[in-house]
């Protein structure tokens, strides 16, 4: 059959080049620019995930043993929400924005006109393989671009489902999927794109940006980092513990870029926190969390080995206060709490991305800010406290992509907040209107008439012209008149 033959063919540089050429042709025809086309594609995506919910759930069960509820709420629910926001607001976003024109360009009218960048590449990740593929793609489409999606090969069931469904539901002349691993990605990166949107880790992020530099292609890099959660002693401990747990193990078993990577609390409070966490962990996942169906598994043997290695260090394994059980055959690691591991251990230098939660203690909570700031900037930073001053101090002095006070990850659900990193956690942002803008060029358009032509712009240059110009810059009408009458010094 032709389609399986096509799949067999290697996707190399030539194939990539032809793909880009084809999409450029489609984009050049102008079809992606119309509001109708964009809306039709967004609606198609919406229908696609709604009609195929079961297949999506199954793919995530296969790739990650992800609890169906997590799939429905995060992978599908959040994506549907993105589509709804776009359908509701796209007309507004597409409108040119009139801006004030200044005295120095009078008479004129000025506006900022959004236009699509052209042909863009979205490279997705394995932990939320549907959401992190479709959310940027729908943003690219809303902004009027043609788009190629490269899903992660580490979530193969999701990748092939996306390839199948997008081909079925979308306008193939403008929206395409390329499956594959390093070779295919390299072939794609050699091409010239108008933007590259990447979700993943910093190591690959560097490779992407280096490839993009060859063509002066702008990038959005949604990376990770060690998201800290600071816990004060004045909080409702049970609620805080539950929120921490649902934000860690309830989000793909800690394999989420916004999961709390580690907790910082005071030496005095740590025992209470640990006890409450233990209790609530059991409430959530039962006495045998390795058997619980309410928690994802580790995605692959590579990652399992990586996480096991973090616990290998005897200075670390000795600090386990809860959990630590592993089952390699099922790729499962129990929710594990560690208390006061050495700050220079591997588990405290790399992003964990798994079900291990180190708790670092300090004498005074204020010390936690310095601790956080001495490390690379994370994608998200959290603090649980009722102390108003501490909250403000946290917001003003800790730098992170985003921050949430007294909960975990919820800030992602708000479409009016930009979602993205800073420093090592990335550059650029998306969600809501920011998705549209991530794939848009805001063109400055200035319209002048022919009246009101001020000769003072043109040579020959005279002192009078200089005086008037100076007065214009100062903006005061009186000075301008004075200058024209030759009265200023």
């Amino acid at each position: 059959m032709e389609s399986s033959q096509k799949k067999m063919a290697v996707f190399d540089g030539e194939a990539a080049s032809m793909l880009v050429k084809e999409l450029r042709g489609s984009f050049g025809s102008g079809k992606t620019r119309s509001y109708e086309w964009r809306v039709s594609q967004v609606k198609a995506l919406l229908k696609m995930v709604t009609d195929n919910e079961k297949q999506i759930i199954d793919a995530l069960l296969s790739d990650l043993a992800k609890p169906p509820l997590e799939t429905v709420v995060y992978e599908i629910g959040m994506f549907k929400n993105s589509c709804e926001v776009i359908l509701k607001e796209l007309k507004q976003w597409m409108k040119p924005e009139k801006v004030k024109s200044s005295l120095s360009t009078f008479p004129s009218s000025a506006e900022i006109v959004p236009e699509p960048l052209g042909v863009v590449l979205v490279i997705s990740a394995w932990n939320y393989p549907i959401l992190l593929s479709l959310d940027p793609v729908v943003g690219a489409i809303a902004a009027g671009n043609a788009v190629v999606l490269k899903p992660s090969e580490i979530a193969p069931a999701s990748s092939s489902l996306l390839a199948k469904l997008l081909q079925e539901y979308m306008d193939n002349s403008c929206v395409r999927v390329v499956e594959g691993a390093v070779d295919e990605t390299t072939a794609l990166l050699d091409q010239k794109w108008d933007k590259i949107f990447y979700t993943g880790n910093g190591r690959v992020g560097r490779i992407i940006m280096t490839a993009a530099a060859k063509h002066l292609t702008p990038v959005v890099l949604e990376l990770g980092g060690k998201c800290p959660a600071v816990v004060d002693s004045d909080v409702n401990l049970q609620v805080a513990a539950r929120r921490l747990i649902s934000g860690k193990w309830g989000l793909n078993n800690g394999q989420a870029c916004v999961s709390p990577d580690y907790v910082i609390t005071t030496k005095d409070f740590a025992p209470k926190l640990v006890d409450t966490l233990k209790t609530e962990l059991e409430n959530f996942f039962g006495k045998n969390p390795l058997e619980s169906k309410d928690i994802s598994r580790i995605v692959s043997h590579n990652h399992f080995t990586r996480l096991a290695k973090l616990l290998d260090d005897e200075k670390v394994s000795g600090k386990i206060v809860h959990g630590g059980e592993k089952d390699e055959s099922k790729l499962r690691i129990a929710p594990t709490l560690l208390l006061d591991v050495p700050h220079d251990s591997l588990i405290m230098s790399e992003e964990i991305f798994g079900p291990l939660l180190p708790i670092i203690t300090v004498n005074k909570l204020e010390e936690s800010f310095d601790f956080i700031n001495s490390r690379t900037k994370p994608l998200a930073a959290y603090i649980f406290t009722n102390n108003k001053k501490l909250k403000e101090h946290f917001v003003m002095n800790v730098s992170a992509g985003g921050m949430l006070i007294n909960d975990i990850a919820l800030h992602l659900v708000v479409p009016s907040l930009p979602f993205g990193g800073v420093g090592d956690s990335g550059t650029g942002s998306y969600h809501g209107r920011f998705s549209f803008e991530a794939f848009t060029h805001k063109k400055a358009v200035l319209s002048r008439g022919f009246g009101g032509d001020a000769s003072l712009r043109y040579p020959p240059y005279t002192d009078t012209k200089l005086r008037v110009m100076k007065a214009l810059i100062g903006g005061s009408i009186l000075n301008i008149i004075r200058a024209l009458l030759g009265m200023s010094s």
Partner: protein
Amino acid sequence: MENYSSLERDVRDMRAYFGTGKTKEATWRESQLKALRKFLLENEDHIFKALNNDLGKHQVEAFRDEVGTLVKTLNLAIKSLKQWMAGKEAKLPRIALLSSAEIVPEPLGLVLIFSSWNFPFGLSLEPLIGAVAAGNSVVLKPSEMSPACSSLLTSVLPSYLDSNAIMIIQGGPSLGELLLKQTWDKIFFTGSARVGKIVMSAAAENLTPVSLELGGKCPALLDSLTSSWDREVLLLKVAVKRILVAKYGACAGQACIAIDYVLVENSFISTLLPLLKVWIKKMFGENPKGSNSIARIVNKQHFLRLKSLINDDPKVKESVVIGGSFDEDNLFIEPTILVDPPLDSAIMTEEIFGPLLPIITVEKIEDSVGFIKSRPKPLAIYAFTKNKSLQKRMLDETSSGSLVFNDAILQYVADTLPFGGVGESGFGKYHGKFSFDTFSHHKAVARRSYYTDFWFRFPPWTLNKLQLLEVAYNLDYIGMLLVILGLKGSKRRLINQDEKLHDKQF
């Protein structure tokens, strides 16, 4: 030969100083902006002299394009600083999961600015203003190709500013390389695409975000401006003047937003050329070299490059209709116009960056759209036309950093418009508040209270919780109420689960 041995240590010290939080204070930022303004006002004469030395720029051109625009920007920044620094509330969805959400701008940290030689003050200080207003520490490297201006910036400006946080350093490519080896929180580069690629590749090693303000061939199209009024000739005169000043009056065409070439209908050439000739004379005088009404070419290398654009190709040489004389000793090229040089010649494929103006004729002026579209995206497109449908086609079908109707270069002074490129002309934007934003991280900050929580957020998972979460995430408040009251059924079945509905009430 400059000694850069202390550079690494200096950069480290600056980072430590940023860490003290000093540059984040509103008072600090304001003091630096006011000091920059003071520098410009007190050293105006020195600045004009330096620009004259490096580029033969006339004082009025220097004021119009550099000093004046900078003072305007500083006035705006000082006035607007508090407003720019304030967080912006973000709209919350109806379902009150969160009690507040805002976007808080914060400085990126330690930033690096590479400037260019053609507007050595403007292109150094406009980004510096943005970086400082945003609360960053800054290292600025002006171009070594405008040495008098760079010296003024390196020797005089620092005495006005907080040198713990702002460093201005002179040097050539080797300094540039050394700087790129350090770690920055942002790099802002103005210059050529070739060097832009080098900067971005170096930045990629540290995941440093960059703004690239590059160039390109900025085309202008000149319509015959027919109108039912009898003002046709008047309009044409204004258009011609604007085109000429946007070429020869902008640092002798050595400006990223200067008009590179002009497109006109071939039936129009006979009307246009005499007008160009007349107005060149009127505006730039009989002796533009002596009167400084046109700037010089910056150095011998660029002078020879421009000379070879004409002399190397006989077909190009014979297309010269006005000007064409080169004074190597004075690095002066008179205003030169060519008609229809071959489209594959260097002068029509490379960015000219000099006082040579090719006029390309087309059958119908609408053909300009296709011509421009088929070439790399420029920093600016200038369309001199009153034809509304042509204007719409230009807007919809071409892409460029900026698009200006019936004028040129002026977009540079409009602070409410973002200034920057797209595609080969770069990415990132600045001017006005965009400068502040480009050196800021817009941090999303959301807050919750302890009072409201949805017990159905937490495992163990049940069918009931699934329904509730679904409506909650769809921000469907009413739906949620109905489910809780048991009034809204669901076609769902919970997959792979026993349907033990042990809803614990937390």
